[in-house]
């Protein structure tokens, strides 16, 4: 943690260098059982309770591959436009580490299940095609906790404890090819890719893709080359970047750091780096200059995976509508612009708008509420839009109340505020807070009389033909009614009372 590097401001870095990206994503499959045994994969169980002879690597135990995980991997491969191997094998990746019970990981090496695909992502209104190198299946390790010491890492710790509940959970690794040409959009492209991938995986129903629980983990590779050069620079790999925002920050931070070193005549060390959520900076980890020898060889305890072309074709035909196609369809149905659609996408609002439309709200209203008032509130409280304590049905009810004239927009906002604050359903909030529009003409008329009496100047101006001055009077009425008056009707009545017609 002593590595405080000078950084070059982003704009300057991009003037002098071109970044090349690469992303490796690990996704825990949402299968009910582990990759090679029958243990549960449920998150959050007491440590070492979801274990058995196989995932603890007791002597004599043997793995049996989880067919559902293989199927899910093939579906991911198909959704990413990959070629599916007709025959491939698991391989053992050998290295010693206490959280890996067998001291080898069953993974795939030179025979991945899926290869050569792509994923299109939208950044700044243009489509960027991210090429996929491979998608393969492996098993997760246990989880080490290093107690004592300053860094929380194994070096300097007093002791370490290991939870093997995670050991053996199916893990899919999705590796991109190097991504050149993103230029100054590199951080956004990286983020857009992970966002799009996450959405795709969610649509496939293969994982709960929770970055904060580690079910989707991202390693970000960055290298820089001087402008005009065609030879790529040395890359670093920033490990376990665990939020979408962090993906963007990690790329940006690494560009700024590497640029400073290179501009100074320095050399980039090929290494893994740790991302720090608090500062957005990365610090040096394990050097990869001398590649560790994992002594890969085909796993002799398992049979090769040989998915028949017929089965693969069947899986392909059964894929759900994928996010890009769905967005195109929804955009057409809702009749919104590219820009508005992109804004909804970036705000993670598409599912919410769709559900609200399904609850009977016109698309324009649904979009208006989610992207306006609700987005503002989510932003204020720092919660994802989807985590707001309000349902599409509740929004539908508010919209219904507005269109029936029972609420105006201002009151509707107060109703939403009440619902979000846990005060009950929209109707309950209206009731409790007394938010119904003043539609009683008598009451409205008496409010207007008071306002006219105390604003004689303005009233005179209107009488003398300066109709624009009516705004102040309407404002007064709204204020006096604490927003509950129907502003349009109040205006009509004021003009009527003052004997003016437009």
């Amino acid at each position, binding site marked *: 943690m002593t590595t405080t590097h000078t950084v070059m401001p982003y704009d300057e870095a991009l003037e002098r260098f071109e970044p090349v990206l690469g992303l490796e994503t690990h996704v825990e499959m949402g299968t009910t059982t582990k990759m090679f045994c029958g243990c549960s994969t449920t998150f959050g169980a007491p440590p070492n309770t979801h274990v058995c*002879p196989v995932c603890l690597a007791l002597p004599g135990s043997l793995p049996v591959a989880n067919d559902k995980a293989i199927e899910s991997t093939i579906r991911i491969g198909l959704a990413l436009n990959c070629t599916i191997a007709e025959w491939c094998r698991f391989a*053992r990746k050998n290295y010693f580490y206490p959280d890996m019970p067998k001291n080898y990981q069953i993974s795939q090496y030179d025979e991945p299940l899926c290869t050569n695909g792509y994923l299109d992502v939208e950044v700044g209104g243009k489509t960027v095609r991210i090429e996929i190198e491979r998608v393969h299946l492996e098993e997760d390790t246990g989880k080490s906790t290093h107690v004592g010491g300053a860094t929380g890492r194994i070096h300097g710790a007093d002791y370490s404890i290991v939870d093997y509940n995670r050991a053996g959970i199916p893990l899919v690794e999705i590796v991109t090819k190097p991504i050149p040409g993103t230029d100054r959009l590199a951080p956004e492209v990286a983020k857009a890719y992970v966002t799009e991938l996450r959405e795709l995986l969610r649509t496939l129903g293969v994982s709960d893709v929770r970055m904060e629980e580690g079910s989707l983990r991202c390693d970000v590779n960055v290298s820089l080359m001087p402008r005009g050069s065609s030879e790529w620079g040395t890359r670093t790999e920033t490990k376990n970047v665990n939020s979408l925002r962090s993906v963007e920050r990690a790329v940006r931070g690494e560009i700024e750091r590497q640029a400073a070193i290179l501009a100074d005549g320095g050399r980039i060390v090929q290494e893994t780096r740790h991302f720090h959520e608090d500062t957005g900076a990365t610090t040096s980890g394990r050097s990869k200059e001398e590649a560790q020898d994992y*002594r890969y060889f085909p796993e002799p305890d398992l049979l090769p995976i040989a998915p028949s072309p017929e089965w693969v074709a069947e899986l392909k035909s059964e894929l759900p509508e994928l996010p890009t196609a769905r967005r195109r369809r929804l955009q057409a149905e809702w009749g919104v612009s590219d820009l508005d659609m992109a804004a909804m996408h970036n705000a993670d609002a598409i599912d919410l708008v769709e559900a609200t439309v399904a609850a009977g709200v016109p698309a324009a209203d649904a979009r208006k509420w989610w992207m306006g008032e609700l987005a503002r509130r989510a932003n204020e409280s720092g919660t994802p839009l989807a985590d707001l304590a309000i349902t599409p049905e509740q929004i539908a009810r508010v919209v219904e109340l507005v269109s029936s004239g029972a609420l105006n927009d201002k009151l509707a906002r107060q109703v939403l505020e009440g619902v979000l604050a846990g005060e009950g359903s929209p109707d309950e909030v209206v009731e409790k807070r007394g938010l119904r529009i003043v539609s009683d003409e008598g009451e409205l008329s008496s409010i207007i009389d008071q306002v006219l009496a105390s604003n004689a100047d303005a009233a005179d101006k209107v009488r003398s033909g300066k109709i624009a001055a009516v705004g102040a009077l309407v404002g007064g009425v709204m204020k006096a009614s604490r927003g509950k008056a129907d502003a349009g009707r109040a205006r009509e009545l004021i003009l009527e009372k003052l004997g003016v017609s437009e």
Partner: protein
Amino acid sequence: MSLTRKTAAELGALIASGEVSAVEVTQAHLDRVAEVDPRVNAFLHVAAESALEQARSVDARRAAGEELGPLAGVPIAHKDVFTTKDMPTTAGSKILEGYRPPYDATVTARLREAGLVILGKTNLDEFAMGSSTENSAYGPTRNPWDLDRIPGGSSGGSSAAVASYQAPLSTGTDTGGSIRQPAAVTGIVGMKPTYGGSSRYGLIAFASSLDTPGPFARNVLDAALLHEAFSGHDVMDSTSIHEEVPPVVEAARRGDVAGLRVGVVKEFGGEGYQPGVINRFREAVDLLESLGAKVVEVSCPSFTYALPAYYLIAPSEASSNLARFDGMRYGLRVGDDGTRSAEEVMALTRAAGFGPEVKRRIMLGTYALSSGYYDAYYGSAQKVRTLIARDFEAAFHQVDVLVSPTTPTTAFPIGERADDPMAMYLADLCTIPANLAGNAAISVPCGLAEEDGLPVGLQIMAPVLGDDRCYRVGAAVEKAFEDRWGGPLLKEAPSL
């Protein structure tokens, strides 16, 4: 006749008919173990109490009118490389001293289901690596024919237990000959089933693509009965074959070779083979011919490369399989004094827990798999493996079974080859091809070598899933020899 001299089939019948109880049979064998095992050292652990309990349960089931299987109540010695939840399981290694697994191997579970009475766990070369049982961390087992000689290995405890009448049956595992070679040098029957024909679940792995559980017995029919009892598909072992167990018992009962084509492997014989072994082998071939078999010589040129290929593949897999023994979760842990890192504790544990032969093979395998050497070593060895399988395939177009001596020499003196790994490895010269190709192969006694009066084994190899042919030919040879000898070869063994 003493109960310990009877065959497993006879004991099973006596128990089923109620003429003797399983408890009597078990007690007789436990007495025999107490009498001779201090000299033989076949057992690492004797489970007298649980054996008697199992025997009582068989007797109770019979008393309740339940029909018993052919081996119910019959005692068995179990190689200490199979996990047993009620007994320690060491694999002959210090690194697992005192380890009690929480689960039974599939083979163990099936022995129990068949009503077999497990007397205890037998000695072996550490992690089944060796041909003499001298590599056990718990001292060598001795050959009942000559206590100064090795009983073969790695399943030497199991071969010695059966040859010294401590048990009528025992289990073994065969990775490069670890059942057939011990059977040959102790004058008993040992069978390596087709790879995948018997489950490896709970068998502490040496080389995953080669390890095969199989039976030992004093005659072919008993071996077939045991083979049938624990073999067959197992969902816990992905490499286990989804096929019916070949009709091994029927084949052992049939025991004829009339019209069968027998191939003599040309490459096995000559230099390095003891004359007495070659002589007994030739007599066995003549015998087969006299019984109506059609004998031809068959060339399997790739078999010459089997030994070097094996000593790349098996150590490679072992180097990975044995990585789990690191002192973190079970077994020995050395150096954990609060000052050392996990990495240091792992290294100290492995340095202290593994014997020299295991370390040698871990190093060999680590080297063979390392980047830059993989293609030259592991990769080439896998190609040889393919060639050997093709040689077998071609041979079985011409003949129904192949025969050879099981091992080039009779039992050698303890200590003779202990410092010469290459000489030790040669003991498996003839047995390794069947492991590399996954074929079935059996060793049956074919007489005593004239030089030393020690047993010689005849190896009979059959195609994948042709296990029944091994038993059919083996039973025919056994019957003809016993007619000639006036009884089993083992009656020539000195009484202990």
